[in-house]
């Protein structure tokens, strides 16, 4: 009986609904913010459907809805409001500000967390931040945006490597790059550390990603956050999350832009007249000749350099720097389509980038596509897949340490014509003319990459779900290098090199999440899971020579195959992890996590490591005594401690004593390849972080202040061995490094009015490190021009100290810096560089980095600019011994060499010009430069057409913009650019430049269209 009554009532109610509420009608109204100001662009949706609209510029909307429908009003930074449609035709809504950006959702690895209750230090960048900086290298968008994260492009090559240093160097010889995790997939750089492929210079491991598919980048900086990535977290973790469809109607967005680039800075070199003047003088002063002989020596060389031209009449004045560089172009086009209904979310995107670099012959062309799809099959089961593929084609030029790289052309004499009369490159230059390679050789690299992830989430209970992810990353790279018969130094009738790198990694992770609020007070979230990752790489290459003609350019065309390689490399990681977060009343916060990692890279004795972390926080502003404060709107204290590892220590088999196969006259041989160390294990880094987050005046002023200590034990050292022992270095875990730093972030909303707003983000961080102990009773470890010494920072420069010029005779002088019997340092000078002791002369890494971003919105205009600053680093110019040595040899000299000493009494830093005499050519602080700089990193001006106009066009947004990157650099740096660093041996010789290209200065115009 009871049941029947129920059915009857239900039917009755349904009927009533039909009659009363069934009619669709137009609802209109306005949406205002807390101050009563109209809010344009607010999403208005009918709940559970895909139909919706947005408020216009005056905050008004209209929508067709039925009575009983629920309208959902949402707007970024405001609390979402729901209103049931009743009998009324007008619904006005006032949105309340959400606790501002502190409610941001942060990706933390195997889950997300609200920034408000976060006890970790994580920097987040959104797609808006990223799209502000149009550049084929994604990481460039991170520059100056996150405190304590130093992003440095190696140099101006389009595919060039990028260094990201999170909170300074943790390691000495191990890898210093952060772990990149794309949608949960730990990425590796499959080309890294291989000498059998590539051109000796690294490429950016994220080169294949397009900015338009990225939703956010979260940088896990402290140990508490990064510990969930255990043995690979010590250099920080960069979590990259791709976009998903958002609830609402389908959104289509299109972006097209065109950029123009040139080098940020080029150096000035001698012109022909100056060159003749300086080298004639050098010849006359040379101790190897009488003045007349010396002059004749110089002039004979001028004759040779000038070829068939007459140097005496100033016929030729070649600016080789101009020939090495070119105008760069950058075309971008991308689109995306996304949306979601209650069950299915979809995101499709495509992107195309075509970049012509600023260095002759350097180009990149990339196409990307992505589908991210998820579907809620039942209330309990959700599944999805992210799938992307990309094709990246790069025209590469040689690494910085090759004669054929365009930048080495600056060494050529201005007396030499670049080309002969018939237009072909002049082969009779001082050094090989790179144009011979530019026109007769190519090095084409194509990377085809597919990254996919299939995942499922099953909710066993409302509070317990299980996620299972399977990811696959296929990185397939081919290289084709052909050097025709007329290429530089080509003597084998052409040579072709082809390589094939197939790298696959699969990641299988399973984790359970328990999330429950008990008694409305105790919020508990527990994640526990396992992960298995396997990397397989297979590399083959083949070289052939003796080509019948340059028209054949593949290996098959060569009559003789002269070299080949075939390599299989494997490594694996197996991990268990768990994390628990707890908060009480949303104000007392606790977190603990642990990860246990095993890796094939380490000896069986020390295969597993455990990495715990703890953190806690207290949101003081939630306490009664502060809750009512008008000025202080948010205050949180947090502290964390954790332990991390660094497993990147060179190769897949760094601990093993190895022999490799060698060949002598085609007979097989064996040779020792690597000394073994069966106790080799992770570098362990312990980090503590204390932070305070604050907000004043309704969070119009907010910020964070952090202090951290980062102590690294068992430092991974590639310890130099005694060379006469027959091996050069051994991988060892020895020594400790103490790092510390302060980070400060300040965000202010300076002006917020009806049609004008101005906000500022400022961050600054200081990082220092000091070696605390080293092997062999703290013995110095010297590698090239760097030293690791107890009490000094890692990899400090270790150089003879240049003391300028003896005014009496023009000799280059060096400080002795020997120890006197009484222990004091002898500051006398010598002109014999071998007498001078080396000293710690500088730090290759900056101690202070800062970023300042201003965003201004005025009517339909948007304007934003970012300044970047770095202080405390020095850069050594390895090419200085050729470029700036007062005409010691016939390399063209930097213009400052004209200030050379000429007669007794001259006070200058440039020694007397003496041909071949080596006066001041020893490696010394003479070639070390302060790399402090402030740079206008990006500046962007946009104009969005008024809604009244674009509505008619059926668009929701049409914005035209002008963006400039690296427009202005303020620095006293004496060489090309603080971001022009050598791409050879980067890790072992940090902070060196060697004929390295400055980065590009790019101006881009573009248009965004949404509908």
């Amino acid at each position, binding site marked *: 009986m009871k049941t029947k009554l129920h059915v009857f009532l239900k039917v009755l109610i349904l009927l009533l609904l039909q009659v009363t509420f069934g009619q669709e009608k137009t609802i209109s109204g306005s949406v205002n913010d807390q101050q009563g100001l109209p809010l344009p662009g607010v999403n208005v949706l009918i709940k559970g459907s895909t139909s919706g609209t947005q408020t216009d510029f005056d905050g008004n909307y209209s929508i067709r809805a039925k009575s009983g429908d629920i309208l959902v009003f949402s707007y970024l930074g405001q609390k979402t409001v729901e209103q049931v449609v009743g009998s009324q035709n007008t619904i006005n809504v006032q949105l309340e500000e959400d606790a501002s950006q502190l409610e941001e959702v942060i990706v933390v690895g195997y889950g997300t967390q609200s920034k408000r209750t976060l006890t970790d230090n994580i920097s987040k960048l959104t797609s808006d931040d990223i799209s502000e900086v149009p550049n084929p290298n994604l990481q460039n968008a991170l520059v100056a945006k996150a405190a304590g994260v130093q992003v440095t492009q190696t140099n101006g090559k389009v595919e060039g490597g990028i260094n990201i240093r999170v909170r300074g160097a943790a390691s000495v010889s191990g890898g210093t790059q952060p772990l990149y995790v794309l949608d949960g997939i730990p990425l590796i750089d499959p080309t890294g550390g291989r000498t059998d492929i590539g051109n000796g210079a690294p490429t950016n491991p994220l080169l294949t990603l397009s900015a338009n598919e990225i939703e956010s980048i979260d940088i896990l900086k402290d140990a508490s956050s990064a510990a969930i990535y255990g043995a690979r977290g010590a250099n920080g973790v960069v979590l990259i999350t791709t976009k998903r469809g958002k609830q609402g109607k389908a959104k289509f967005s299109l972006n097209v832009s065109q950029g123009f680039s040139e080098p940020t800075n080029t150096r000035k070199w001698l012109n022909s007249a100056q060159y003749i003047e300086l080298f004639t003088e050098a010849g006359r002063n040379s101790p190897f000749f009488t003045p007349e002989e010396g002059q004749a020596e110089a002039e004979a060389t001028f004759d040779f350099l000038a070829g068939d031209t007459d140097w005496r009449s100033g016929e030729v004045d070649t600016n080789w720097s101009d020939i090495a560089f070119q105008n760069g172009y950058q075309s971008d086009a991308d689109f995306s389509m996304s949306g979601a209904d209650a069950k299915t979310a979809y995101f499709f995107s495509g992107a195309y980038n075509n970049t012509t670099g600023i260095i002759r012959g350097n180009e990149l062309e990339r196409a990307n596509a992505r589908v991210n799809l998820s579907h809620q099959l039942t209330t309990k089961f959700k599944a999805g897949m992210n799938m992307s593929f990309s094709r990246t084609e790069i025209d590469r030029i040689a690494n910085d340490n090759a*004669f054929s790289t365009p930048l080495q052309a600056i*060494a050529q004499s201005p007396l030499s014509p670049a080309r002969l009369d018939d237009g072909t490159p002049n*082969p*009779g230059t*001082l*050094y*090989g003319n790179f144009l011979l390679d530019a026109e007769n050789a190519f090095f084409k690299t194509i990377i085809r990459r597919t990254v996919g992830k299939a995942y499922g989430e099953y909710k*066993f*209970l409302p509070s*317990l779900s*299980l996620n*299972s992810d399977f990811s696959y990353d296929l990185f397939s790279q081919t290289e084709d290098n052909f050097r025709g018969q007329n290429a*530089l*130094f080509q*003597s*084998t009738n052409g040579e072709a090199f082809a390589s094939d790198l197939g790298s696959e990694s699969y990641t299988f992770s*399973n984790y*359970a999440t328990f999330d429950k609020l008990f008694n409305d007070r105790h919020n508990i979230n527990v994640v*526990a899971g*396992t992960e*298995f990752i396997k990397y397989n790489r297979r590399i083959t290459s083949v070289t052939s*020579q003796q080509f019948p003609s340059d028209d054949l350019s593949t290996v098959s065309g060569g009559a003789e195959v*002269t070299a080949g390689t075939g*390599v*299989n490399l*494997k490594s694996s990681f*197996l991990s268990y992890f768990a994390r628990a977060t707890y908060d009480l009343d949303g104000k007392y916060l606790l977190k603990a996590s642990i990860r246990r990692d*095993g*890796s*094939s890279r380490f000896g069986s004795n020390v295969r597993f490591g455990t990495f715990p972390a703890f953190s806690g926080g207290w949101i003081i502003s939630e306490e009664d005594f502060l809750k009512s404060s008008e000025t202080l709107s948010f205050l949180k204290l947090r502290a964390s401690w954790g332990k991390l590892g660094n497993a990147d220590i060179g190769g897949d*088999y760094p601990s093993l*004593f190895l*022999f490799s*196969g060698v060949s*002598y*006259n*085609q007979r*097989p*041989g*064996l*040779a*020792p390849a*690597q000394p*073994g*160390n069966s106790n080799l294990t992770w570098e362990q880094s312990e980090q503590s972080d204390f932070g305070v987050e604050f907000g004043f005046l309704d969070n119009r002023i907010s910020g964070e202040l952090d202090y951290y200590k980062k102590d690294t034990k068992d430092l991974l050292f590639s310890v*130099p061995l*005694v*060379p*006469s*022992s*027959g091996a050069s270095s051994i991988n060892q875990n020895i020594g400790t490094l103490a790092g510390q730093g302060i980070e400060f972030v300040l965000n202010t909303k300076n002006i917020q009015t009806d049609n004008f707003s101005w906000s500022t983000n400022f961050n600054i961080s200081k990082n220092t490190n000091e070696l605390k102990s080293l092997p062999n009773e703290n013995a110095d470890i*010297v590698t090239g021009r760097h030293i690791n010494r107890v009490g000094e920072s890692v990899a400090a420069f270790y150089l003879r100290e240049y003391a300028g010029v003896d005014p009496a005779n023009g000799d280059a002088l060096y400080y002795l810096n020997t120890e006197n019997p009484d222990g004091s340092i002898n500051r006398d000078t010598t002109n014999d*560089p*071998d*007498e001078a002791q080396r000293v710690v002369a500088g730090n290759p890494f900056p101690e202070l980095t800062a970023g300042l971003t201003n965003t201004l919105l005025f009517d339909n205009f948007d304007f934003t600019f970012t300044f970047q600053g770095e202080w405390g680093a020095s850069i050594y110019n390895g090419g200085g*011994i*050729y470029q700036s040595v007062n005409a010691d*040899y016939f390399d063209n000299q930097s213009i400052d060499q004209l200030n050379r000493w000429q007669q007794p009494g001259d006070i200058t830093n440039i020694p007397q010009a003496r041909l071949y005499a*080596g006066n001041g050519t020893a*490696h010394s602080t003479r070639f070390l430069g302060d790399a402090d700089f402030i740079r206008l990193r990006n500046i962007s001006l946009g104009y969005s057409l008024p809604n009244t106009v674009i509505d008619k066009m059926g668009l929701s947004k049409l914005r035209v913009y002008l963006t400039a990157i690296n427009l202005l650099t303020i620095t006293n740096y004496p060489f090309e650019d603080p971001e022009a660093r050598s791409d050879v041996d980067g890790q072992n010789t940090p902070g060196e430049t060697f004929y390295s290209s400055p980065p590009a200065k790019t101006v881009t115009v573009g248009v965004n269209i949404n509908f």
Partner: protein
Amino acid sequence: MKIHKIISVFSILFMVIGCENELEINPTDNLPGELAFTSEANIAAILVGTYDEAGQAATYGGDLQIFTDLLGTSDQVFWTGSFATFRQAFVKNVLIDNGFVDDIWTNSYETINQANLVIDNLEIVTSSQEERDRIEGEAKFLRALNYLDLVRNFSAPYIAGQVNDQLGVPLRLVGIVDYSLNQDIPRSSVEAVYDQIISDATDAYNLLPDTNSFYADKYAAQALLARTYFQQGNYVAARDAANDVLVNSGHSLVTSGFAGAFNNDTDSSEDIFAFQVTSQTGSHDLTNHYASELDGGRGGDIIIEDAYLDLFDDPNDERANFTYINPVNDRRLTLKYTNQFANISIFRIAEMHLIRLESNFRENTSVGLAPLIEINALRGRSGALPLVGPLTLDLIFNERQLELAFEGFILNDSKRMQKNVGSIPWNDNSLVLPIPQSEMDTNKLMVQNPGYGN
């Protein structure tokens, strides 16, 4: 129900435990060290690898010869290449951080260590006594060869007729496998190093077969002994060793002319021992720095000057005309290195003639041949007019330069003959290479050569 679900969650989570054996991954491209010393085939292969090491560009692949030639010549050639480190040698101002010096030192000791590893594991070679003798002999030959060049270039010159207790180089005679141990080592005396070279080379002579394909044979060891005794001024022993090679080795001057002795893809009749280079293996840095672009070089970093050509007394001497002009830059270059895949001769029979004739001349003997006849036989091969005599040491010194220039002889010939290099005295500190900075930085027992700061 709940329990059941929770159990299933955990069972999925810990599926991966079975993957733990996946952490056991061994390389497929390298041989684990502990397996290297388990078979005779491997020991023989390590020996082949030792040749490959010694033949690398840093030492016998050419840089050793180039560096010492630049240090040992004044106006006969001119270094015009870009490498400031080679220019340091040419202007006799080698700095302690010179990269080539470092490479010469390091590569020599890498070779020595590999030879030591072979010698230490001879007991694994059991197939035959001949095989074991061959392997031991070749390893000792390579060790002795490297020690001779180390001690000649990194130590003050050997002075005949006195105890040479000046600092030599470290003598490492046991292969190093465990690098976790302290590897510091002091320098032995020059005398001790020479004694070791003679002992090794004598063992090699006694152990090696008469012929041994392109590997070192009995007469390669004897040639090494001849060169060693000669450097010591032990002319009797040098003469007899050279005579043994000339009489018994079966090697003889290429009769087709001087050019026939160079740029050979396979050893010529004149080659007693050469490092093998092919388009696939080996290095030929001599071509790189001496040759035109067309011949596989960089255009000619080392230009032959008139002062060298002026040494010739007969304009028709094939050797005087053994040069060419690189049309690209008008540089005069030697024709000795125009094939980048040619073998690099280390002991030519011509050197044995020169050793024997000078030793005979000094000792006033005529073992094998009378000195004047022998020098004219050598000249005759290149079409040079015979000397009428009387022979002098200066004429012999000159003849060595005519025959052996650019092959890495001049520096140590000057030291042995006590002749200045330009205006620099033969025993000047600047003609001895510095102990590399990297060795000084790591080896606490190392002492730097005089004139290099310490």
